[in-house]
Every structure is written in C-alpha cells, then in structure tokens.
C-alpha cells in the first residue's frame, strides 16, 4: 500500500495497538494531523499545553503498563514537552513522543520553530531518533516502541521532518526489528539464585525493600508469595506503593524521607537488605554515612548500572523482577524445610516496638481541616479502590502515607523528578484508560495551577476526575523546609492572590466545592463521588501550618528520624 509519510505514522501507531495519542498541533506536524483526520482507529486527544500531553500519556502508561504516546510540533511544542519527558524518564515510564521537525533542507538554518529536538531531549530520553527518509518511518516507530517498553522502560523521542511526512512510500509494518547494539535483558543465573536464597534463609534481621521496578515488571503476586513464604518484613518506596498490600501485617509502610519510623529503623538495623527493583535513591537512604552498618545487601534489578551505584552490594542479580522472584520462589519452595521463622522472632519484637510509636500520628482537630484527614476519608469513601494521582509537595506525602494501596498502578506520582503540575493531566490519562474507575487527583493550590488549563481538556472529553485540592495557602513543602532550616523565614512560599477555585471550576464547566470544616469532609467527598459523570473540584481549606512527619532531615540517617512533636518519641531521645 502506497501511503504518505503522515499516514504511515498514524498506521504504525494503529499497528502498535495505540488507542490514544495526546498532543497539540502546529506547522511541522500538520501533515500528521491531517492523517489523523482521515481515520478513526487512533484517537487524538487535544490537550491545552504540551506538558499536559506528556503527563497524560505518562498517567495512562502508569495506570496500564502500556506505553503512552504523544504528538507535538517542532520548536516550542518540543520544549514544552520536555518537562513531561524528563518526568517519565526519571520514573522509567514507557512513552513514545513523536515530534514534528522543520523540513529537512531547513534543518540547521535556524528556521522558524526549529529546535534540535534530538539534542535537547537527549539527557532525558532512553533513546531518540531523527528520521531521514520516508521509508524509515515505520521501522523507526517499531524500534521506538520496542526500546520504550523493553528492559528498563523509558521515553523515546522520534523527530520527523515535515517534508518526509508528505513523501510517499510503500507501507509495510515490520514484524520484527533487529537492533544489534541494544542490550538484551540478562537472564538470572541459577547459581546466583542459590546463593541469594542461602543468604536469605540465614538472615536474622532481614528486610525486603522494593520499588517501582516491581510495579513495572508486574511482579506483585510473586513479591507477595516471596514475602509471605518467609514471613519477612516488607517496605515499599514511594514509587513501589501498592506492590505489597498496605494492611498486611508484614508490611511496614513506605520508607525514606517521609516513610514510617519502623521501615527506616528496620533498614538501618537490618543484617540483610533484599532490594528488588529499587535503586537506593537519596530520598530513600538519607545520608550514606552510616547507612545500614550491619547489612549485607542483595540487589535485584533489570538495569546493571544501578548495582553498586549508590550502595555497595554483596550479592546482585540482574534480571526482570518477576523472573528473578519466580526463580527465588521456586528455590525457596525447594528449601521450604530450611525456613526457620524462629530466627526472626527477636527481629519482629523489635519492629513491633518501633511500630508502637505510631509514627504517622497527627493531632485531630474539630475546627480546622487536617490534610491527613481528607486523605483518610478519601480512602474510606472510595473503598481504597480509586486511582490516585498526585502533584508534588506535602499533599503528595499525605496521599502516600494515608491512602492505603493494595494494588499496583493505582498510585501515580512523579517520584524521581518531582514535577508539580503532573497530577491533573496524569489523572486524565488514567481516566481514558479506566473509564469506570474512580480517579482522584490529590493536589495543592500551588501545583494545580501549573497545569490547571487541562480542566478544559477534561470538559471537552468528559473526564469526571475528582480534584482534591489540599489548600493550605502555602507552597507547603517549601514552607516546611523554611520552618525547619531557615528559621521560619518564609521567603516566597506564601500563595497570595489565589483564585476562587469554585468559580474557576465552574468557569471551565465543572462542579466546584469549597469545604472548610472537618465535619463536612466526609459528606462532601461522598457527594462528589456520587456525581459519576462530573468533574468535581474540591477545594479543602486545610491547616496552614501542618507539617509532614516523620522526617529524615538533610544529612541525617535512617535511625535519626524526626518524629512529630507532641507525639510519642523513641526512648532516650
């Protein structure tokens, strides 16, 4: 079949099974937009800003495990998309970004809306391509999806000069492609598995610490089997929440800067850290001086470069988390008689003592809405079943701490890059993927204003998201750091001149609510979630000076957590 390059682009997406492309048109992409107009297999979703397109595609990817797809024009279209590409890159999210480029003969001449898309995106993509010929469009798109979705996933950008999208070629979508230089995923070696299980069975103070890799590998069932067979404590990173059920007695909650006291203390005092699909990021480890002084480290990851990057490991297994866990489980069942729960009895006693401090404790109030209460009520009202996206700040931490997750793909946040503005467009992507599910965006009055224009997209496509705005009239997380580290000099962290969010929501055609009293929180949430076909923007006026606890402050270690003043404190402090 002879087609234009533009039709080949769209047909290739169809062949990849893409249902939605999030994008924004412009000169260099117009042939491709015309090709979209000629067909109805792949739906193009018009966002209001290219950052929104990338976050929406990202949200869809996180909620489904399928790659998200974005289409932008050259120049400012690409630069606007960079934040979202980098967000996906830092969290290893599969995404394919197609960008229009100026015509080939104009490249390099500072043409109108020319930007070196390959160059500007290079540090924040897994790979990128500049297509040179119309014949290369289909194979390059095939490669882009392959690279984005295999190994450690990530965003891939494909830059397409405009003249090529008008050229004509035979359309053949390749079944297979070979990329000899693209590293295959290593297969775990049986000897590594045997050695790992030996170490696991001999541990007296073990902890299983897992991250986004378990979510990406769809390894939650294997993880649960592994942890339960051993009866070992398990903690998840911010990116890994949901992989282990929040209410299981073996679960210690999230670890890291705002993780629970018991999870961080257990990391510090462990004699064996079993790290799976996690990368010992600085928000997880605190200072590396004195990190887990007695621990051996067993590290499982698909990416060899994370092994020994931040923490020296004793045993490493490179491979897909699901494959490795399956092999570990098989070896464990072979050695079932050697599992000795008595070995860890004293360890559990110690952990339960730490747990007894109830480090997420906060003071309830009858007069002012505590942000934690809103999240707890959100959990109750949605039965713990909602997809929850968040922005970045205190509200993100409250959501992670207080919305108990029991499934992967349901907690969707920008952990690596920490991108304010992520929450609302990400929720749109989730909603496209799961039309009947409850989707809540937990945000702050600072973050929501970074991509608020997407309320119009929600109106155009009937996306009944529930926006939970925890409005403390501060860039709360910044204010908290200024309170702790800058002697309460609140430089530029006060959000003055806020819009009337209720009216704003209404102006976009949605329902707005303002909630000011603790007693009204639950009722308002019930009312909002009962409006199945409306986007409801819920503006919760929350305690202005509430802080996120517990906390590992800068330069401190796992065992030096700051707990909420007025609450239970560890002995000797």
């Amino acid at each position, binding site marked *: 079949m002879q087609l234009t390059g533009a039709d080949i682009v769209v047909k290739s997406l169809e062949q990849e099974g893409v249902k939605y492309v999030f994008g924004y048109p412009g000169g260099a992409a117009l042939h491709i937009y015309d090709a979209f107009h000629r067909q109805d297999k792949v739906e193009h979703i018009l966002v209001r800003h290219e950052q929104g397109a990338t976050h929406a595609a990202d949200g869809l990817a996180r909620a489904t495990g399928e790659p998200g797809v974005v289409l932008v024009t050259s120049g400012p279209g690409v630069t606007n998309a960079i934040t979202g590409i980098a967000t996906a890159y830092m969290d290893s999210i599969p995404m394919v970004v197609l960008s229009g480029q100026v015509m080939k003969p104009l490249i390099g001449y500072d043409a109108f809306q020319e930007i070196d898309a*390959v*160059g500007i995106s*290079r*540090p924040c993509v*897994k*790979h*990128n391509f*500049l297509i040179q010929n119309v014949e290369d469009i289909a194979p390059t798109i095939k490669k882009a999806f392959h*690279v984005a979705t295999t190994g450690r996933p990530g965003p891939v950008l494909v830059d397409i000069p405009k003249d090529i999208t008008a050229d004509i070629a035979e359309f053949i979508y390749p079944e297979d492609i*070979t*990329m*000899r*230089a*693209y*590293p*295959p995923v290593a297969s775990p070696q049986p000897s590594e598995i045997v050695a790992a299980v030996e170490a696991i069975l001999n541990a007296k103070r073990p902890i299983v610490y897992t991250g986004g890799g378990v979510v990406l590998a769809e390894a939650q069932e294997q993880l649960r089997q592994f942890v339960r067979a051993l009866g070992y404590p398990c903690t998840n990173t911010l990116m890994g929440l949901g992989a282990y059920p929040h209410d299981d007695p073996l679960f210690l909650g999230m670890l890291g800067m705002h993780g629970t006291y018991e999870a961080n203390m257990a990391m510090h005092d462990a004699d064996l850290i079993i790290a799976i699909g996690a990368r010992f990021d600085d928000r997880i480890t605190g200072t590396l001086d004195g990190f887990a002084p007695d621990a051996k480290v067993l590290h499982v990851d698909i*990416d*060899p*470069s994370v*092994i*020994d*990057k931040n923490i020296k490991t004793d045993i490493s297994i490179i491979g897909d988390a699901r494959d490795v866990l399956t092999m570990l489980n098989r070896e464990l069942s072979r050695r079932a008689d050697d599992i000795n729960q008595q070995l860890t009895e004293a360890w559990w006693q110690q952990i339960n003592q730490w747990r007894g401090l109830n480090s997420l404790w906060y003071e309830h109030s009858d007069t002012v809405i505590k942000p934690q209460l809103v999240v707890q009520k959100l959990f109750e009202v949605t039965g713990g079943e909602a997809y929850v996206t968040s922005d970045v700040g205190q509200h993100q931490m409250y959501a992670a701490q207080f919305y108990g997750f029991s499934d992967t793909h349901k907690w969707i946040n920008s952990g690596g890059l920490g991108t304010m503005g992520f929450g609302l467009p990400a929720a749109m992507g989730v909603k496209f993927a799961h039309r009947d599910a409850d989707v809540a965006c937990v945000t702050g009055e600072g973050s929501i204003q970074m991509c608020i224009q997407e309320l119009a997209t929600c109106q155009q496509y009937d996306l009944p998201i529930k926006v939970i705005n925890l409005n403390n009239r501060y860039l709360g997380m910044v204010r908290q750091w200024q309170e702790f580290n800058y002697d309460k000099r609140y430089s530029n962290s006060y959000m003055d001149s806020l819009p009337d969010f209720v009216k704003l929501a209404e102006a976009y055609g949605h329902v707005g609510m303002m909630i000011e009293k603790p007693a009204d929180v639950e009722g308002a949430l019930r009312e909002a979630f009962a409006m199945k076909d409306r986007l409801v923007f819920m503006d919760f006026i929350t305690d202005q000076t509430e802080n996120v606890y517990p906390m590992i402050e800068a330069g401190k270690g796992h065992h030096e957590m700051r707990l909420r003043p007025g609450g239970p404190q560890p002995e000797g402090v």
Partner: protein
Amino acid sequence: MRHIISVLLENESGALSRVAGLFSARGYNIDTLTVAPTNDPTLSRLTISTVGDDRKIDQIEKQLGKLVDVAALQDITINRHLEREVVLVKLLANQQSKPKLDRLVAAFNGKLIDINDTQFILELSGSSEKVDELLKALVDFEIIEVARSGVTGMTSTERALTVEQP
C-alpha cells in the same frame, strides 16, 4: 587510575554526542577521545581515556553499555594491550640547533615530515607517555603548535572487541 575504554558504536548521526553527553552529564572526565569508522562501515570505534577509581570506571562502563548505540565495549587497560598516539609538532626553523633536533628525533624514533626555511614539522607515534616525554624533551626548541591525536589501542591478547551477533 588511567583506563582506556574501547567502544564499538553504531555509525549513526548523534551517536557520538550520546557518548560525550553521558560523560559530561555524569561528571566523568574524558582525557582523550578518538573516533573513526572500522573495517565494517556501519560501526565506528571510539577510544576513550579516562581517570577514575574502580567504582567510577564500573559505572562508566555500565552507563556506556546502556546506550542503545553502543554495540560493544572493553576496558583494554585491564588486559595486555597496545596503545598509540600520534603527535605532530611544528617548530620554528633554526639551522643551528637542527643537528640536536635530528638526534632527538632519531632517539624517539620520530620523523621530520616537513622542512622549510621557516619551520619544521615532526611526527611521532607512540604511547601517550612517550609523546609526553618527547614534548618535554622539546622544551629548548621553539614550538609553534602541537596536535595530538589522543590515544587509540587494542588488546594484544585473544580477547578482541567484536559485536556479538544475535
């Protein structure tokens, strides 16, 4: 310690900038970098010399290995290996000291490849160490400019750098 890492790279546009970008983004040093096509025109061979402790070199190799265009790589310095660098030195012509220069060039096994009334150009191929020594020995002459190629090399064992065919 100094390491020499040889890389086979897909001969694609932008591939070199990925390697260079990786070094600058992650704060690794590049002391020298050479690149040219191989007998297989679809592959370029890069030679990077860098300095770092074992942990840093391990990270450099792993990060390079992740690049989608990198087909194979090898730290040749951990094996028996040969390394060569070419240097061209342009000197102000001076007939008085010419005999001294001739002796020096002979001692280093170099060559005067261009001689005229105003300037001489000498060439030497050898290890980077030898090139350093030559430049030191030339202090008494008036150097106009120096062009070093950067080091290239290969193992002298059976362990060749080749692309594994899938």
